[in-house]
């Protein structure tokens, strides 16, 4: 069974349709890359999956559970949305780390707040915090940041910040981790270190959706590629097919910008 099923997502801003009937599904452990020119709706799609935008139409299911169905108003109650978000993680283009917390604290904060809702929190308080800390340290080590845990975001490079942000998203163990152009805000020499950790996550069968302009990276790491154009999914397939033998003229045009430029 697919871990994620998205059906007929539509979204307009001020009467302009940005997403026009988006449907796709994703298997557990797979990596989906979304490519497409600027303004085609990639960010809006990720924001809909993370409940930062409310789609006008459509269904989102994770592990067979219907998280959102615009036909069924009981699925968009404000109170339940917070928990539904936890199925997804989102790594932003601009990191959005919390500046007043160290790298380690950034990774721990949300988990600590969630732990307070556990019924046994009062009894096991110390233990729980210790578990969260150990897990956060492990994640930062995995991101190659064992020497940076006590640093504040402004003391870190862009690449280091983005790796903290990835650890922060992983700390909540989302079913699906989304990346919105994770390297677009970075100096070219720093993109490699971020792509490397994402690749390692793919090797560990982390289910991911990655919006990116790094075409060779997308081809390497993805099990499935979607090409979005003007709010539609114009082409979808395995990376070999989409990159080497695109069916659509638009896809070919788009890709040619990257091979020549």
């Amino acid at each position, binding site marked *: 069974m697919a871990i994620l099923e998205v059906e007929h997502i539509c979204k307009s801003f001020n009467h302009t349709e940005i997403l026009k009937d988006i449907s796709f599904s994703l298997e557990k452990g797979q990596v989906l890359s979304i490519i497409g020119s600027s303004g085609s709706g990639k960010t809006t799609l990720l924001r809909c999956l*993370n*409940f*930062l935008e409310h789609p006008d139409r459509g269904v989102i299911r994770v592990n067979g559970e219907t998280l959102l169905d615009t036909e069924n108003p009981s699925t968009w109650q404000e109170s339940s949305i*917070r*928990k539904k*978000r*936890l199925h*997804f*993680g*989102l790594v*932003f283009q*601009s990191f*959005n*780390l*919390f*500046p*007043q917390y160290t790298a380690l604290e950034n990774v721990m*904060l*949300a988990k600590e*707040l*969630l732990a307070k809702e556990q019924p046994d929190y009062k009894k096991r308080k110390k233990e729980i915090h210790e578990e969260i800390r150990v897990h956060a340290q492990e994640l930062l080590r995995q991101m190659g940041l064992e020497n940076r845990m006590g640093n*504040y*975001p*402004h003391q870190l490079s862009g690449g280091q910040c983005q790796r903290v942000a990835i650890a*922060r*998203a992983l700390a*909540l163990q989302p079913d699906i981790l989304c990346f919105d152009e994770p390297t677009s805000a970075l100096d070219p020499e720093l993109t490699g270190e971020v792509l490397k950790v994402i690749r390692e996550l793919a090797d560990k069968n982390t289910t991911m959706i990655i919006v990116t302009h790094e075409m060779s990276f997308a081809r390497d790491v993805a099990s499935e590629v979607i090409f979005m154009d003007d709010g539609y999914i114009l082409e979808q397939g395995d990376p070999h097919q989409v990159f080497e033998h695109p069916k659509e003229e638009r896809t070919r045009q788009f890709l040619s910008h990257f091979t020549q430029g």
Partner: protein
Amino acid sequence: MEQIMEQMPIVLHSLNIGFLQTLKLFFVTLLGALPLGLLISFGSMSRFRPLGIFSKLVVGIVRGTPLMIQLLIIFYFPGLVLHNPIWGSGEAGRFTAASVSFILNYACYFSEIYRGGIQSVPIGQEEAGLVLGMTKTQIFFRVKLLQMIKRIVPPMSNEIITLVKDTSLARIIALQEIIWAGQAFMKGSQGISGQIWPLFFTAVYYLIFNGILTVLLSRLEKKLDYFR
């Protein structure tokens, strides 16, 4: 000179009592206006239109008129117009009326500073919190509040220093703060009259107190320098 040294203990005693009243008004105003200002700023940012408009109207009126007039209206209006002198006639009543006026006035100024501070925190901070399953309340207190405080400390410091000096306006409803105490020696009080130096001497109190505040506030600013 000799005469001043003789009068000094009497004058200082009077000024100390007056300054105590000044300090009381200052701290009561801060204690009331800091939280009330936050409420008003939430009001003026509210998506519920009537509340937004009402808050902005109140802030506009309060900031657009002199504090002196607000003091006079709040003190005299209930008694003279409504024939219901809620403040009473004693020093305690005058202090309450002055506190109410100052809290309302400063809360409005603070609310604009808070609003600027809250709106200057990038939207991405809130979104990052939401995506991590945090509640709006958690995001406000654990993510946005400290960033907001860092941004509002400098403008807030200015307002607070101004407040120290503005307390002297309460003299207009005969609140016996330090200027009132100093001036009493011009008309005559405790066997001293026709003396203007006690009034000038009140400046020393303001200078020392504002000096202490400035040091404390800039320390707070430095403390928040650890992040950007």
